[in-house]
């Protein structure tokens, strides 16, 4: 991809993303202020005793007695230094806490997305190639069920089936505790722990991608160049793979980028079910302890992650489809 095409697109996506990011930061600040209690209250509660004077002193030292606008400026300047505040409950900076948990969640989301795309595109293609016949109808009912099932409930039922009854897979955690595995064994152990949570997270999106792929394949199948390929005598599988699927996948990549936020939300409940040490579980713990600094840190960081992924998808599409110059 030449730089002359890259730059206008990069500039446009940045221009679009910047106001949204700023809006999210400001909204986050006001939500944090709305939250009951402040850092001084939390610390006083932790220590068990605090006089009115020490509370005033603490508020002063945290800058909590300044006017709102000053506090906003302080919050913004902290953000530019990469600080999301300090969590008295975990006794560590929120940014460090999140950085510790983020990789686990990204790994889980990545695997879930791969499962959703592979299964969804396969099912969708099978549906479209059999449109109107029984495989199509059967799969469309199955995907609609996937679409209607709460992720946390699937998670619980998978635990009942595969851990409790069959005993095939572990029911929680991210690795076998105390096993001290190395190399390939450690990777396999990790994967075993990931299969169930990633599947529970993926099912909803399997349904979406299957339906999207079906519609998109059906539309492309009616194009002239597909008829030409068939008239040339190409085998049906070659047509399906090289002529139809390749073009049908564009809308799927667009939508997959938009789903990052949704998958993150799903991870909150699924990680709780499987006690997976990630951002979602951290969110749950923060809710239980009413630690709003951590909670809003997670919200801010995950929103920025969504913006970042959307920009990446924009650039990916530019690479996939050279006809896109500057949209709109």
């Amino acid at each position, binding site marked *: 991809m030449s730089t002359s095409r890259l730059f206008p697109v990069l500039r446009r996506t940045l221009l679009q993303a910047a*106001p*949204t990011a700023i*809006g*999210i930061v400001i*909204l986050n600040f006001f*939500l944090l202020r*709305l*939250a*009951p209690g402040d850092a001084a209250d939390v610390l006083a509660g932790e220590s068990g005793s605090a006089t009115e004077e020490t509370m005033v002193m603490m508020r002063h030292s945290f800058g909590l007695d300044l006017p709102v606008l000053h506090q906003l400026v302080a919050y913004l300047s902290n953000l530019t230094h990469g600080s999301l505040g300090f969590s008295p409950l975990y006794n560590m900076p929120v940014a460090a806490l999140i950085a510790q948990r983020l990789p686990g969640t990204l790994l889980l989301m990545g695997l879930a997305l791969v499962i959703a795309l592979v299964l969804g595109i396969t099912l969708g293609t099978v*549906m479209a190639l059999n449109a109107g016949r029984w495989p199509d109808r059967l799969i*469309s009912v199955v995907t*609609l*069920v996937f*679409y*209607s*099932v*709460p*992720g*946390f*409930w699937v998670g*619980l*039922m998978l*635990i*009942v089936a595969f851990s*409790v009854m069959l005993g095939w897979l572990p029911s929680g955690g991210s690795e076998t505790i105390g096993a001290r595995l190395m190399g390939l064994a450690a990777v396999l152990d990790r994967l075993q722990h990931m299969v169930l949570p990633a599947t529970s997270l993926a099912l909803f999106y399997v349904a979406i991608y299957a*339906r999207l792929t*079906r*519609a998109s394949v*059906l*539309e492309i199948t009616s194009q002239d160049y597909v008829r030409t390929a068939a008239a040339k005598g190409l085998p049906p599988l070659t047509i399906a793979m090289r002529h139809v699927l390749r073009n049908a996948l564009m809308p799927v990549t667009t939508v997959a980028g938009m789903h*990052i*936020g*949704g998958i*993150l*939300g*799903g991870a*909150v*409940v699924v990680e*709780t*079910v499987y006690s997976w040490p990630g951002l979602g579980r951290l*969110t*749950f713990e923060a*809710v*239980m302890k*009413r630690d*709003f600094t951590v*909670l*809003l840190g*997670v*919200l801010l960081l*995950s*929103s920025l992650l*969504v*913006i970042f992924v*959307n920009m990446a998808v924009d650039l990916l599409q530019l690479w996939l489809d050279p006809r896109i110059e500057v949209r709109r």
Partner: protein
Amino acid sequence: MSLPAIAQRPGRGRWGVVRGPEVLGAPAATPPAAGSYRAVRVFFRNPAGVLALLFLALVAAVSLAAPWIYPDDPLSMVARPFLWPGHSWDYPLGTDSLGRDVAAGLVWGGRISLAVGFAAMGLGVTVGVIVGALGGYFGGRVDDALQRVTDIIQTMPSFVLLVVLVAIVQPSVQSVTAGIAIVTWPTVARLVRAEFRSLREKDFVMAARALGFGHARVILREILPNALPPLIVTASVLVASAILMESALSFLGLSDPNVVSWGSMIGSGREVLRTAWYLSAIPGVAIVLSVLALNLIGDALNDAFNPHAATGA
């Protein structure tokens, strides 16, 4: 305008004007209202949609009748704990770890799930329609500002935002409903805005404007009815997703502690998952069936409104 002068010529009826420019200005006969009933007929010819509608009506009826079916508090302990389903006629779905009747919880929980689902949808659709209609119809600065707000909310992971909102304002049926409406209205606003932007340019809207109708009448009587079909389909799907969100929240313990809901039943059943998995399974089946019914209705409505669309697309 010279039109009235020509139309008043003696010997000519209402349709006496046949020259092009004048025909454009002539009052049109009211179009037959055939479309609205056609969609309803198509919907009722779809077996899956009708079945789903019947099922949902049954769930709603049972939920409404809860005070008569199970007059006692569903949170009260009535029998021996861990009674498996099918072991007692009095408690067909068994009892939970505290000896509470699962069937009673299911019926009362349905009330909360459906009430929150429909109320959140109603609130979200109302706000979304107002914002989308104003932005799409007027465009310009109003639209830009409203677009920014929808962009911000749509970018934030909606379930995380919902968790934060409900945690800030203590969890209750009202706060959960409001929270779900807050994270869903941008979807509606975006859809309504797009509809309004395309309908705004249509001839019948131009005609209405030319006749001197005010903005309110054009928006409410001319454009909105034409934007309804996609809105109705979206609304049915929104109820489904609101029920899913409510169940996930109460599973996490973010719900009113004094009322039973399907999600909170699964949440408390989770602690005894290994020995009494039916406690988590039964309310989950209720959620899946209700949400599936709503999605089937949404699909059937979509097919009814768009006869040419590929089914299931």
